[in-house]
């Protein structure tokens, strides 16, 4: 007969040894297998053994930012999914919801994060920022003002910035793919 209680005891002694794979890693692994990356997104892992730090590039196929390639870094800490991933844009871009340091203003990456969300939710959120920049919740106030008051002008400025030109004296990075 199988001695259930002794199995349990064996397991609990194994439990004391530090687990090789953290809960965060297990969860990220699950997120990644469920991920359905659209053609406009690409993920790369600089260290293939480290699932918690990776890069994402977005190449929007419509909207103001069409034709650009936008690069982000993802850093996931060991408290994931209780803490949201840290997402940063590594280029200087002209966007109402991304500041010049690359901080991203997306509600689910901040106050509205909850652990039932996953990497897919974050990717959908980022994709959405490029299709529908949001002037009501700005990190770059100039860009938001621009979008609110004159869409045509905003569109022109976005195109200028994507070519690596300056917008109101600030030089941006050439992101054309």
């Amino acid at each position, binding site marked *: 007969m199988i001695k259930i209680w002794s199995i349990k005891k064996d397991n*609990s002694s194994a439990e004391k040894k530090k687990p090789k794979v953290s*809960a965060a890693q*297990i*969860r990220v692994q699950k997120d990644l297998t469920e991920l359905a990356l659209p053609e406009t997104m690409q993920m790369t892992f600089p260290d293939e053994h480290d699932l918690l730090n990776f890069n994402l590039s977005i190449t929007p196929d419509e909207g103001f930012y069409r034709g650009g390639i936008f690069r982000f870094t993802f850093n996931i800490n060991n*408290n994931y*999914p*209780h803490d949201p991933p840290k997402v940063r844009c590594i280029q200087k871009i002209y966007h109402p919801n991304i500041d010049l340091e690359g901080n991203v203003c997306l509600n689910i990456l901040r*106050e509205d994060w*909850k*652990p039932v969300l996953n990497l897919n939710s974050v990717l959908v959120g980022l994709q959405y920022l490029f299709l529908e920049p949001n002037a009501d919740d700005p990190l770059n106030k100039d860009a938001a003002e621009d979008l609110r008051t004159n869409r045509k002008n905003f569109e022109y400025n976005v195109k200028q910035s994507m070519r690596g030109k300056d917008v109101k004296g600030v030089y941006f990075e050439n992101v054309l793919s």
Partner: protein
Amino acid sequence: MKVKIKSWNSVAIWKWDVPNEEVCGICRVAFDGCCSTCKTPGDDCPLIWGECSHVFHMHCLLRWLATEGSRGQCPMDRKAWVTAK
């Protein structure tokens, strides 16, 4: 014919009273499994039900409620978490 029973083994199964094939929304592991910090499912890694009807592994939920960002809310519907009795 007479049968003499010399020995017998009993077998039992258990499962949580939750819909089949459902997973905990926080760790994404089956409810009948355990949260990612535990090794043995069952009483050692119980489930917790909220009055909002949402279910999680207790350890997963408590860890979430302990974070500042949770504001004491259910991770599904963002209503104040009240454990069902």
